[in-house]
């Protein structure tokens, strides 16, 4: 015959066991929901990469140079409209209203003769915050997220700058360190001549969303950067 104390211990063990099982179930559910949101972020990023890819630089016929598009320039595509197209795609593909995106367009300055990054880059372009709805909780910290995307862009641009300048050897036969988009690569007699576009655009964006289920609430944020396909070698 069990005593009252023994019965009490059994109930206590049962309760501890149930709480542990519940904690494990909730933990697994949270991991699942967060990993699912991360996968959705990657899907959206890939769709954007496959999406609107209009050129973001143009050829200035007067000065014979390539220039960064500006809203004041006469051109079919400006950086604003380029990013707006991406925003439109994001809005049409977001799985729910908790999704938001912060997006910025940056440029590496390229030596047209060598293809090497010539200036230590510092992000300076406008950053666009694209909210998909009032429930996009993670977009409420706008300035903080804006700084985060600038820091992310700065770190990636710095990597490109370091890679380019560390690996460029100056040898005509070597492509190492030449990261610019090539305009032409020809031999004139014995001499090899290359020409590169003097701007290299990179799009940085940050997608955030909120997992919001009973007992589980968590913000999921991922950083991405893409090079417009037109500039890939």
């Amino acid at each position, binding site marked *: 015959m*069990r005593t009252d104390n023994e019965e009490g211990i059994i109930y206590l063990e049962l309760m501890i066991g149930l709480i542990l099982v519940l904690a494990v179930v909730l933990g697994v559910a949270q991991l699942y929901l967060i990993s*699912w949101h991360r996968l959705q972020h990657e899907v959206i990023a890939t769709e954007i990469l*496959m999406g609107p890819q209009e050129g973001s630089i143009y050829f200035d016929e007067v000065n014979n140079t390539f220039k960064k598009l500006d809203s004041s320039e006469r051109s079919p595509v400006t950086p604003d409209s380029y990013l707006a197209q991406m925003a439109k795609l994001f809005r049409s593909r977001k799985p729910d209203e908790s999704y938001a995106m912060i997006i910025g367009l940056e440029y590496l300055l390229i030596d047209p003769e060598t293809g090497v990054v010539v200036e230590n880059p510092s992000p300076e372009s406008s950053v666009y915050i694209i909210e998909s709805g009032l429930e996009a909780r993670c977009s409420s910290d706008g300035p903080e997220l804006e700084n985060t995307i600038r820091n992310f862009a700065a770190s990636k641009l710095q990597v490109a700058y370091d890679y380019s300048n560390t690996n460029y050897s100056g040898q005509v036969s070597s492509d190492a360190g030449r990261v610019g988009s090539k305009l032409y690569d020809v031999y004139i007699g014995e001499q090899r001549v290359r020409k590169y576009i003097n701007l290299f655009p990179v799009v940085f964006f940050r997608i955030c969303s909120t997992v919001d289920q009973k007992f589980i609430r968590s913000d999921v944020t991922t950083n991405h950067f893409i090079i417009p396909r037109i500039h890939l070698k």
Partner: protein
Amino acid sequence: MPGSQSGVSILGLAIVLPFVLLLVLAGYDLLHVYQVRVFAQEVSLLTAKLSHSASPDADIPSSAEFFVNPTPGEEESVTQRRRDYWVERTSPENEEYRGVPYYTDKELQVLNLGYGYLSSFSSKISFPIPNRVVDERRLYKRTNCTIDFTIKEILAASIETNHNYSRLVYVECHVPLLVFEILNFVEKPYIELTQSAFAFESGDLNPSSSVVAP
């Protein structure tokens, strides 16, 4: 230990074990659904990527009816209903008709690679999901999936073969359930899930050539 206590312990075990078994099987159901959901998303994304190619590196099937993988031992009528999925989309008299040039050589190559990727995940996935199957319980012992795409702007009467269309590739799967069906938690013996990926301006529907986005 007195005999009565031993009996109570065995009885307790007999009561608890079925619940433990149900929990394990429920976990299996949920993991299976998660696994198929993730994979459906991967397949749709890969197929959308392939849609951007002007000439995917794959054999060109003679028609869309090539994409049929029946469940071993299933009735011929069910297999025919799988074929009907494609027949309905390529027959002008059917309301599901998509237009003559809809499944061009390029689209067939893309679907060939997409279904190949699906089969590489598991050869036990049957496709496509058959139309109007009467005995669903017999059919859904295995996962059934369909890969297809839609073009929103398109109508059968107004296809512009040289227009650069955007495609929405989707993968629809019916995943069989064990415990949730036994416990009668679900109306059907399977769970339906659909994942999609968007291929922005991924080429025309010209049967002889395909224009891809710049």
